């Protein structure tokens, strides 16, 4: 790390089934009705996006038409983050803002798929039929909603972020590594100002099917993350989350207030054999432990509910004996943006100096005495990748 460089979180943009923005999220977390935003799609539990007026962050209808839901959610959340940090519309700063987006891949036109799959078995020449239907039925612009990097592209177009643009693809680890690399670049002097996050459309049937090919989805009705047991899974969420991470001196020069200090972020990828996740988390914890200053910390867990990852994380957290919250019980699980969402919610908790109430019956979540001054955020992927980040109240 270059000497004296410190990273602050100076902006948050969040959108989920709880609503949009910090205040409504904190209010809902305090209310203690974790399943309130969930619904069923087929056999699955999903958390759809709450009411949102996309015009507020994506004013041009033409832009909205060029996007599929995951891009609208993400572009909206990125706009909230830029606004929160006071850099929205500041062309000079936006031209130096380094963007790292965590993304899956884009959406399909399910009606076109259905028409083709309906017609293929009856077609005289199936290959020619497929070509003809795709040529005629695919909207040219749909491709741009299918490219993984086009969330970043839309953020550039709508909000003018152009310093740099990188998209990491693939599940929870993409979100953890987006934060880790943005932070490492700031610490090393490779970057001063970063926009980091992602979005997920949790209601895509093609994606629900894909995640359940591996048996990762929650079925049989809503339960909080820790109550899902060995047959657990994740409740797919529509959500968007972005952070502005900024070098301290840069923030001070422009009079930006820190919401938290991002102290460290680490990632790893273990072989997912029994005990692997627990071992990986222990290794990551050793790296972060020297920065944990006091007994006044808690863990915001990214546990998804998918097994065996969540069971192993629960066992690891039990070793620590620390107060834990799994915000996924409230907002559901959007693989790529989940880590950033949990960092954002942890930042809110730090701002209030306290945790929201426990919301499950197994005892993993418990009350905490005293003022909250640090939070460790975990991000254990449902099938691969483990990560930890530490935030604390910034000293100004």
């Amino acid at each position, binding site marked *: 790390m270059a000497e004296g460089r410190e990273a602050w979180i100076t902006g948050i943009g969040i959108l989920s089934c709880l609503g949009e923005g910090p205040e409504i999220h904190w209010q809902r977390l305090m209310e203690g009705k974790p399943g309130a935003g969930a619904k069923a*799609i*087929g*056999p*699955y539990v999903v958390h759809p996006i709450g009411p949102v007026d996309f015009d507020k962050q994506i004013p041009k209808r033409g832009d909205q038409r*060029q996007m599929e839901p995951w891009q609208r959610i993400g572009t909206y959340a990125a706009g909230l983050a830029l606004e929160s940090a006071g850099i929205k519309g500041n062309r000079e700063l936006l031209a130096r803002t380094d*963007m790292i987006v965590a*993304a*899956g*891949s884009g959406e399909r036109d399910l009606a076109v798929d259905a028409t083709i*799959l309906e017609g*293929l078995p009856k077609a005289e020449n199936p*290959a020619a039929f*497929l*070509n003809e239907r*795709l*040529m005629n039925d*695919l909207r*040219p612009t749909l*491709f*741009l909603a*299918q*490219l*993984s*990097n086009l969330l*970043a*592209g839309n953020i*550039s*177009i709508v909000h*003018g*972020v*152009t*310093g*740099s*643009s*990188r*998209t*990491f*693809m*693939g*599940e929870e*680890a*993409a979100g*953890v*590594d987006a934060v880790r*690399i943005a932070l490492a*670049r700031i610490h090393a002097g490779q970057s001063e100002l970063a926009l980091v996050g992602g979005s997920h459309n949790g209601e895509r*049937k*093609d994606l*629900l*099917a*894909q995640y*359940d090919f*591996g*048996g990762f*989805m929650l079925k049989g009705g809503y339960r909080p993350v820790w109550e899902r047991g060995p047959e657990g899974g994740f409740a797919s969420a529509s959500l968007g989350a972005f952070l502005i991470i900024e070098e301290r001196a840069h923030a001070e020069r422009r009079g930006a207030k820190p919401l938290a200090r991002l102290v460290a972020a680490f990632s*790893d*990828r273990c*072989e997912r054999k029994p005990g692997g996740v627990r071992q990986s988390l222990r290794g990551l914890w050793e790296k972060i432990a020297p920065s944990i200053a006091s007994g006044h910390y808690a863990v915001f867990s990214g546990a998804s509910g998918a097994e065996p990852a969540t069971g192993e994380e629960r066992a690891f957290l039990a070793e620590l004996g620390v107060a834990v919250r799994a915000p996924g019980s409230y907002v559901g699980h959007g693989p790529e943006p989940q880590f950033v969402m949990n960092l954002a919610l942890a930042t809110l908790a730090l701002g209030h100096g306290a945790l929201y109430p426990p919301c499950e019956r197994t005892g993993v979540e418990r009350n905490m005495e005293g003022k909250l001054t640090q939070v460790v955020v975990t991000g254990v992927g449902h*099938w691969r*990748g483990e990560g930890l980040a530490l935030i604390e109240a910034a000293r100004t």
Partner: protein
Amino acid sequence: MAGTDDKAGRPIVVVTGMGIVTSLGTGIEDNWRKLTAGESGIRPIGRFATEGLKTRIAGTVDFVPVEPLCGPALCERMGEMAAQEAVSQSGIGSRGRFPGPLFVAVPPNEVEWPQRQEMGALARGNDAFDYDNVLRTASTGAFSKYGTRFLFASIADRLADAFGTQGSPISVTTACASGASAIQLGLEAIRRCETDAALCVGTDGTVNPETLIRFSLLSALSTQNDPAQAAAKPFSKNRDGFVMAEGAAALVLESLAAAKARGAKILGVIAGCGEMADSFHRTRSSPDGKPIIASVRNAIADAGLAPDDIDYINAHGTGTPENDKMEYLGLATVLGERTKDVPVSSNKSMIGHTLSAAGTVEAVFTLLTLAHQRIPPTINYQVPDPSIPLDVVPNAARDASVAHALSNSFGFGGQNVSLVMSREAA
């Protein structure tokens, strides 16, 4: 450390291993020989029926057996072949243990039509097809064989296992700049002193009906199907689009200090990288060319060089009317009076556009250009475009003295990445 840091005090990053697979063949030697002979790897598509399609050609890699064939499986296999060649040449690490992180440029990973049909057939039973039936079938575990195959990070995950890279592998996707972004991430990690080495791979094997049609619907592809070899015509007046292609390339990056310490042969230097996103349009460049200009200037400045130091440019050169015009504008602005004197060639005239792999593939060819002091040509250059007065190294390779070279990669979504590579550490 004296002699192993650059002018900015950062570790110098060198290349100690390279590997490549393109439609021309497998391996550095075969590819370089064919590329400098001006051979084309573009051919009629045989993989699927092209009835009714405007474009029926591509630079497919058909000689790598993958069963059953699907994009992620071919990407993984080609990536593995390229990485194996690079790691072997480098001699770094030990079998199954690469001492650094993995950065892989990959296309979006998607379920394709053969699998979708398979799901559809099982899901529908006697009913009309709909996705609700697919959901009911998926939850029974009937498709567990696809459990991770189509997850977005699966290619990187499996390559990480195959080579024993360290830490969390990064799948990077910045459309047609992805391959350059992967190298950029490796370069930055070594400069941060996080690691002494990085394995950077770019791979793309996604020529299938839907991807072809998507590009076709955006009018991005050449439709001059016959003869296939003549379709890719970068910088020509009669250029009419790019030709989709497949391939993979890999580079072992190391700090100069670490490479020297283990006595590794140094194949070239990654001297600098520049980037600038474009906020103008989803598929088109800002008409003033500013983001491209900034990307090129940033890369040259990052390398501690001036535009006058650049001896050769490995162009993005897709052969679309738009790209080549804008790339010329960008280069002419940066190079000024030297514009017509600096050789600029496009590998895509021969191997087509390897999409997510292109930045890595073309970085390998740029490093070979530096190593051999020989510039591969732009083939199919029969009708010069008077509005693009560049020395495109027309139709035949040429010996030249090249100390520093620039490679451009531009992608949909406003992605612009430029790399500067040098023959020797400054």
